[in-house]
């Protein structure tokens, strides 16, 4: 299968399995010859930002006395940026996470952080494959 076909199949699969929603299509629509790398740039920023936030969440929840407002603020950031890139599954996990922050449940928050982490890294892996395939489609050899 050509890189272009693989790319189309991957993206279709991400929509079908609920990883992405139509906001991602909005991003694709904004890419054009004047901004040919827009999607990969936003996706990359999202992945970097997401990793940073997850690190902060782990730090906050590791404290003997958890500041749930701070935790909630970080979750809110990740919820916002996932919504902006169309990362549906991650966004929904963040919504659950917010509720647990309201309940001030440290256990609940730790469990949900794990789920966020799993979902985020699943998405990130597929985004990385997507960007690789896009590079190939544009005539660049695959690189890490």
């Amino acid at each position, binding site marked *: 299968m050509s890189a272009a076909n693989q790319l189309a199949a991957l993206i279709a699969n991400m929509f079908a399995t609920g990883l992405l929603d139509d*906001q991602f299509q*909005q*991003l694709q*629509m*904004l890419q*054009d010859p004047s*901004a040919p790398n*827009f999607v990969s*740039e*936003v996706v990359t*920023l*999202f992945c*970097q*930002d997401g990793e940073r936030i997850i690190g902060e969440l782990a730090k906050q929840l590791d404290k003997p006395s958890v500041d749930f407002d701070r935790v909630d*603020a970080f979750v*809110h*950031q990740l*919820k*916002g*940026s996932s*919504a*902006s*890139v*169309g990362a549906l599954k991650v966004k929904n996990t963040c919504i659950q996470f917010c509720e647990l922050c309201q309940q001030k449940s440290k256990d609940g928050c730790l469990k949900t952080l794990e789920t966020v982490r799993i979902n985020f890294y699943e998405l990130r892996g597929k985004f990385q494959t997507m960007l690789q395939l896009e590079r190939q489609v544009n005539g660049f050899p695959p690189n890490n």
Partner: protein
Amino acid sequence: MAVVASETPFHVLAVDDSLPDRKLIERLLKTSSFQVTTVDSGSKALQFLGIHDDDASTVSVHAHQLDVAVNLIITDYCMPGMTGYDLLKKIKESSSLRDIPVVIMSSENIPSRINRCLEEGADEFFLKPVRLSDMSKLKPHILKSRCREHYQQEQQHQQSDSNSNDCSSPTNKSSSSDSSRKRKAEDNEEILPQKNRPRHS
């Protein structure tokens, strides 16, 4: 509505603490032919606009002294430190900035929040994620505020000067450089012809 002949795109200042969101709003605005400046906080926005946090209500830098005029400010609501609402208030308290239309963005659909912002003078409230279709709502606010501004200037000139050499003429057009936006009060390049009274919808 009368058309202001201008070759310079409108300039939007976008404020958002989230990097992916800043990237998105920048692209949305550029796709819609706006010139864009993005900053990551309310205080940086105020710095860019030329006013200091603590003395916004007293002597503030006159908009004409800005290096680049800003035609609209779009800001996220939830930001650490100064929220979008706080920023909105500072802008409305500033005599030089209060006429710049302000749009608030938020991922939360909270009616009391929306109303609070609109009551404080926000021109529009966008639910995030912002879409391309939202961009078409921006220009009307810019044009409305410019019509208002020109109308007010026209009134001032009529009152202060009976000499009609600075009255508008249909052949006026603005220059293509930013200097058209740095006009002093006496410079009337962009005044609308008298017969075209702005219609406010």
